[in-house]
């Protein structure tokens, strides 16, 4: 993360501009989770729309509470063993003063805390795309709580916490290529290897039910991602946050065009799903790299990610794992591409002086560091997530019954239907059955 901008002798004073910026960025990142819900929700069949939306939305509830209770302390508290943090003053935020500044920065600790909370919320939500149509909602809620605790909080500490092993090694991850995207993508792979495929995978048509919803979600993600990326510098006292903002736009544009070009050549059409997916792939890839590369480097990172992710989404059919909405193909692959490309494209003129193979002395040092960070997070998340899913699967069960899955998880788990286009209705309000007096009195049944 950013080095201190202030002079060593002078204690930092709260900057209203940076604080305002961080609160806006926090709100932008918050909006990414509902955006993700739409992005995923449009991609599933109509019978599981609501479940898909809820799998993301519930994270706003669960992770917020855990973060306040102990998550922030685990991720950013005093390091022990380069593996985990802890600060008892931050447990329940009981010992935090409202004006207390975050470390050597000129923003309040609370602003940093809430900004990082939004990252902790969206990361488990990202996993849900791989688990479409088939996971019991209670099991998912339990999974989020355990996964955040055992996987996300420690990994965020490794990558961004002072004393974390990846942080100390000098692994560059500006806004979450490893901690968020590789982490979520690897977890998704681990979980689906345990719980298996959807009924009818590779046999039944599983077309997206609403591509306009997917586009809306992708648009919200793109918008919110400016807060995610530019905000990660925690202020605007130098130009790094702005460079990140600009590179975010450039890489995303390049990735969208690259994905569209690839699929036009390969499959014959420019699809909306391809445009939306390409944009997200670019956003993922520039997330770790945007503070290190030049704008031309951002074009390269985006274009490479766009093509590689477009190729990677086909792997699930080849290898037979049901990564339903391509969390592995887009987030894991995009995260690895962005993180590794830092080792090639870091210009030394951005967030740090570290240079990649194509710049400076053409050394491989940064590349090895990036690979270590990628490998460590990928392996830990994949293995621990698989174990976690296995334990839940063997106790309360991860999946709904086959019958419920085929009929539709929305009705089975949420007792709701996403869309009612029938003019006739064809039912009666339950109150009319259980409370005939009241119904007779009003003579109106809203069906």
């Amino acid at each position, binding site marked *: 993360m950013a080095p201190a901008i202030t002079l060593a002798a002078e204690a930092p004073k709260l900057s209203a501009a940076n604080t305002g910026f961080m609160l806006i960025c926090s709100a932008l990142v918050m909006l990414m989770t509902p955006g993700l819900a739409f992005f995923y929700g449009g991609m599933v069949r109509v019978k599981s729309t609501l479940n898909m939306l809820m799998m993301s939305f519930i994270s706003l509830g669960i992770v917020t509470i855990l973060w306040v209770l102990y998550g922030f302390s685990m991720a950013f508290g005093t390091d022990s063993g380069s593996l985990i943090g802890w600060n008892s003053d931050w447990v329940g935020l009981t010992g935090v003063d409202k004006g207390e500044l975050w470390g050597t920065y000129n923003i309040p600790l609370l602003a940093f805390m809430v900004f990082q909370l939004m990252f902790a919320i969206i990361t488990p939500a990202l996993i849900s795309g791989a688990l479409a149509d088939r996971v019991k909602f209670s099991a998912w809620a339990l999974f989020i709580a355990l996964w955040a605790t055992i996987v996300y909080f420690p990994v965020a500490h490794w990558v961004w916490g002072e004393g974390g092993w990846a942080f100390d090694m000098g692994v560059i991850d500006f806004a979450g290529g490893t901690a968020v995207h590789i982490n979520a993508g690897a977890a998704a792979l681990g979980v689906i290897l345990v719980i298996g495929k959807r009924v009818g995978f590779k046999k039944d*048509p599983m*077309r*997206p039910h609403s591509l306009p919803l997917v586009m809306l979600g992708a648009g919200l993600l793109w918008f919110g991602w400016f807060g995610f990326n530019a905000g990660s510098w925690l202020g605007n006292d130098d130009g790094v946050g702005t460079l990140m903002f600009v590179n975010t736009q450039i890489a995303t544009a390049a990735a969208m065009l690259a994905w569209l070009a690839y699929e036009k050549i390969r*499959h014959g*059409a420019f699809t909306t*799903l391809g445009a939306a*997916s390409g944009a997200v792939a670019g956003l993922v890839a520039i997330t770790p790299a945007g503070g290190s590369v030049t704008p031309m480097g951002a074009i390269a990172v985006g274009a490479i990610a766009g093509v590689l992710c*477009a190729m990677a989404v086909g792997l699930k059919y080849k290898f037979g794992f049901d990564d339903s909405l*391509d969390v592995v193909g887009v987030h894991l692959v995009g995260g690895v591409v962005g993180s590794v490309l830092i080792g090639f494209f870091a210009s030394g003129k951005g967030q740090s002086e570290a240079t990649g193979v194509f710049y400076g002395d053409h050394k491989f040092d940064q590349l090895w560091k990036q690979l270590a960070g990628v490998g460590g997070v990928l392996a830990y998340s994949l293995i621990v997530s698989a174990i976690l899913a296995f334990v839940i699967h063997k106790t309360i069960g991860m999946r709904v019954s086959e019958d419920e899955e085929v009929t539709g998880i929305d009705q089975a788990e949420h007792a709701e239907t996403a869309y009612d286009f029938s003019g006739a209705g064809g039912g009666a309000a339950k109150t009319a059955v259980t409370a005939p007096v009241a119904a007779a009195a009003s003579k109106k049944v809203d069906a």
Partner: protein
Amino acid sequence: MKLITAVVKPHRLDEIKEALQAFGVHGLTVTEASGYGRQRGHTEVYRGAEYTVDLVPKIRIEVLVEDDDAEQLIDVVVKAARTGKIGDGKVWSIPVETAVRVRTGERGPDAL
């Protein structure tokens, strides 16, 4: 009486409606339908995965007519529905025993 049923391409609805009105038909029923004939479906690609979509959207038009008008009315519908391309649909007729106008209780041809 006869019930004429036409399952045709959705974008031909307006032409068919106008042709039927010109012919003197006072009412008809339209339903959104899906199906396939000799043209089968079409292919869609999502993130590289190809899906054959067998059922294509159609509309189903139903008209009740007197026996003497049936053949001529079928010709009117067919003419208005035809594009000459594969997938134009089908039109058929079946005999109808009786029909009642719900509001007045009129029966038979008077109910049309």
